[in-house]
């Protein structure tokens, strides 16, 4: 498996454009801004990793792509533009019926808890049938089962799995069955939200490898969300790092791991233990995580940043391009 250094910076290849997206939640203590004025491009045929610690807004951002926001939250502003036939449609402006058709058909999502994603009282087979019939009501059941079996096979599951109930399968099997269900309508884009987090290490490794293989075979665009940077090192082409609702850095996987620019990315990489890295290279990240209801002024990382200066507490840095598609939101860097 080689690291993809292909030139992807072609405006035409952008399949998803997020512009100025702000999402807020009403909580008991006030208004929580989970996603704060985020711009993000996803290129066709890439695996983009979205990383950040818990509460940084990465899942909220990803779910919003399908206009899925919890009842106490709302999308305050912004656009989510998806390319269809050379035109961008704003997902947020779709009617409920249009949205229902759009979901799973164009963009599907694999959630973290595979157990709670399946209906416990119907067989795996019926999950496939129900999903397809909801979009193409006249499709023949046998045909659906045939495609489903092939997908399950692609994920190295036995065909017979189709006749099982969710509780009859192990966690790893369920996660693979869920992933194959997300492929059933042949979507153009798949969102994977912590798909391997609850699994044991051996299964996790296997699923990552499998997803990468399937990606290479089909060229499907994927958005992979996780708090685990090590997993992203293995699977993604590009990565975006989030901190308290803002994207602070975007770059290729090699740019992020070998030449990180944002002080938060640098500190985060130094704080993750590994079985290969010398132990002396590890450093804890300084300072506490700020209260998300009362985020710091200016750059939200400034109270913990060892390199802060006056401007950092005064104005919020914007993402700027350093060249080669490496973007960073930090006052230390000047536009290239």
């Amino acid at each position, binding site marked *: 498996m080689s690291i993809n250094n292909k030139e992807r910076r072609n405006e035409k290849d952008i399949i998803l454009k997020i512009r100025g997206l702000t999402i807020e939640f009403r909580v008991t203590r006030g208004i929580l801004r989970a996603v704060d004025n985020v711009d993000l491009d996803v290129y066709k045929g890439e695996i983009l990793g979205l990383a950040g610690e818990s509460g940084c807004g990465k899942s909220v951002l990803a779910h919003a792509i399908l206009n899925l926001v919890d009842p106490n939250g709302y999308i305050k502003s912004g656009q989510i533009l998806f390319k269809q036939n050379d035109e961008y449609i704003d997902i947020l402006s779709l009617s409920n019926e249009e949205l229902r058709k759009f979901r799973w058909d164009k963009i599907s999502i694999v959630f973290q808890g595979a157990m709670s994603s399946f209906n416990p009282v119907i067989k795996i087979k019926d999950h496939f049938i129900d999903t397809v019939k909801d979009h193409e009501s006249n499709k023949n059941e046998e045909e659906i089962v045939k495609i489903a079996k092939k997908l399950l096979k692609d994920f190295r599951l036995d065909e017979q799995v189709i006749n099982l109930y969710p509780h009859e399968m192990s966690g790893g099997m369920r996660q693979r069955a869920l992933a194959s269900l997300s492929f059933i309508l042949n979507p153009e884009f798949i969102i994977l939200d912590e798909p391997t987090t609850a699994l044991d290490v*051996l299964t996790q490794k296997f699923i990552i490898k499998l997803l990468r293989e399937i990606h290479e075979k089909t060229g499907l665009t994927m958005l992979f969300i996780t708090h685990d940077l090590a997993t992203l*090192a293995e699977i993604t082409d590009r990565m975006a790092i989030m901190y308290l609702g803002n994207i602070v850095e975007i770059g290729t996987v090699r740019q992020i791991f070998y030449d990180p620019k944002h002080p938060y990315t640098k500190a985060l990489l130094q704080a993750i233990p590994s079985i290969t890295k010398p132990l002396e290279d590890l450093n804890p990240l300084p300072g506490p995580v700020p209260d998300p209801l009362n985020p710091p002024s200016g750059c939200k990382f400034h109270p913990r940043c060892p390199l802060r200066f006056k401007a950092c507490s005064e104005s919020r840095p914007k993402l700027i391009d350093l060249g080669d598609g490496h973007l960073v939101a930090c006052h230390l860097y000047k536009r290239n």
Partner: protein
Amino acid sequence: MSKPLIKLENVSMVFEIHTMFGEKKKIKAVEDVSLEIKENDILALVGESGCGKSTLGRIMLGLLKPTSGKVLYYINGKYRDIWSLSKKEYKIFRRHAQLIPQNPYTTINPMRSVISALIPPFLHYKIARNKEEARKMVAEHLKMVGLVPPEDFFNRYSCRLSGGQLQRIAIARAISVKPKFIVADEAVSMLDASLRIEILDLLLRIREEYGLAVLFITHDLAIARYFARKNKIAIMYLGNIVEIGNTEDIIKNPLHPYTKALIMSVPIPDPDIARKRELPKLRSLEVPSLMNPPSGCKFHTRCSLATEICEKQAPILRNINGRLVACHKIGD
């Protein structure tokens, strides 16, 4: 050379469960485990979920009585089975052996303030003579775990504290009764990546200062390596210890096929290295059920080296180049 503080001798733990249909089933969570932890030493116990590592930790703390085997603790100059101690001796053991649990959010009673949760141990074990003295001690301990100024935390409830702060309080509470042995059960796995090293460093510093023996339970080999860098790691699979050895030896040169597979699967935060790594060769991905464990070596259903003997006979831990390994296929 320091002596073992706590020893397990052929410890097994069988749980009996009732299924939905009224059947009784037996689950062997821990099977025939013998190990020891020296005074002022660390043992990292690594295994995947369901391997019995937490059960083993609870047995060592005396929270679960093993169905067979002995837990021996060094008390008043000799090794005593913790389940046949006198009341007085048991009280000493209870104070000596403390737990740092996994979930910091449920460690502290949500209806109690920090101070009212931390004072009782000092009074119960008569470490403080009165409430006033206990308050001072709480302040000292909060300072020690980096919660300064301590007075700011006295009247807070757990809902107003972050995961990292709560885990610091859990550490403060565990050391408040002057223990000798601590079981840290996935003590940092619920915390954010950026906080883990900080809490581990704190735990290492306090361990050093107090000369504590620690059983460090984790599913994460990278965390185990960081915490037990100068000590030992034990690898557990479906209730058995399959390998014990010096931390760096295990990481660099695993011997047991399961340890090998585990190390090959650990994600590495370095794209060039991560993408060169092979998948471990396994016969099956499925972890067998504890209710119906495989015969012989429990790993044989997944092991690529398995032969007939592995199906028939359970391997015992043997010394191979200073390491204990339970495998028929290694070292011959």
